[in-house]
């Protein structure tokens, strides 16, 4: 997958860090200090459809060029997470118990086109 740059237009992963201190949650969330709420954004031109991430090899590039040239039935393709991991939280619940849990699929590691 590709991380978004300042002027990225095609499908990429936008980093977005939520600092728990900034939102006033540092008193009940013990660890970690924040949450990487990355998200996928950007266009998925036709020739990138179905390729998770960007062209990573000469072979993929050639296939992309053929697709673009063929301009088959124009179908929509979306920029979506292709790899995610859990968010491990250690927090105080309403009874001041200490709870640790791994919330699945909360952090986006990479994006690609459907």
């Amino acid at each position, binding site marked *: 997958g590709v991380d978004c740059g300042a002027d990225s237009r095609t499908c990429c992963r936008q980093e*977005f860090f*939520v600092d728990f201190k*900034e*939102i006033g*949650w540092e*008193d*009940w969330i*013990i*660890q*970690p200090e924040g*949450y990487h*709420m990355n*998200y996928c954004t950007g266009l998925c031109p036709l020739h990138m459809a179905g390729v998770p991430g960007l062209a990573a090899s000469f072979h993929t590039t050639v296939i992309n060029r053929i697709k673009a040239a063929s301009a088959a039935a124009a179908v929509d393709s979306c920029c979506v997470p292709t790899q995610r*991991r*859990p*968010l*491990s*939280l*250690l*927090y*105080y*619940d*309403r*009874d*001041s*118990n*200490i*709870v*640790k*849990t*791994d*919330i*699945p699929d*909360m952090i986006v590691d990479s994006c690609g086109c459907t």
Partner: protein
Amino acid sequence: AAAGWWCPACGAAPGTQRDALLALAKRSILEKLRLPGRPSVPQPPGRGALLTALRRMREQRSDTAPAAFPGMLRDGPASPRPGMGLQEYEILSFAESGSSTPHSVHLHFRFSQEVAESTEILQATLYLFWAAPGRGAQPVTIRLLQPDPVGQNMTVTSETRLEVQRTGWTTLDVGAAVQSLFRQDTPRLTVELEVPEDWGSPLPSNHSDSHWPFVVAQAQARKPHRVHRR
């Protein structure tokens, strides 16, 4: 927008976009923790009690699976366990002292409704420290109580008698008791400790004492209810 759905952060001014994303992050975390809102400011346990509890847990499980509390928090999930894929919880609950007599005391352990409603207990262990006065074995009794469904009293669901030989920690499996109270409106485990008359209080002097009783529970999200069609 073309598809008619509203993107909370698209096209908005950077400041508004950031606020929308922060609100989205809060809502997403609270939903996944099944919390109606952020908990009120907690009353953290004493540092001594917390460090002792974490050390006891690590000793207790160093031979099985890596502990799952601070110092062990890692980016990814803990080592694979049975039922991997379902969200798991580790809960550390410190006792609240209840009614007492010169040689017995009630301890209360509260569990949050949100966790109790959506999980099932895999195991739960009660940790008790005995400051034995040291004159040979002393008989102590540990009773697990539950509110009587019809009356105001408490009913004894289990009773364990121990011979305490010397000062030190004792553990007791309370998994079944915690599992059954998870199905109640107020998931609260009450433990009664009774010691010989001349022993004095079975509890350390105050909450922050590093020998304060606690319960460690492992819970797992209930399997989603699947309807099989034939």
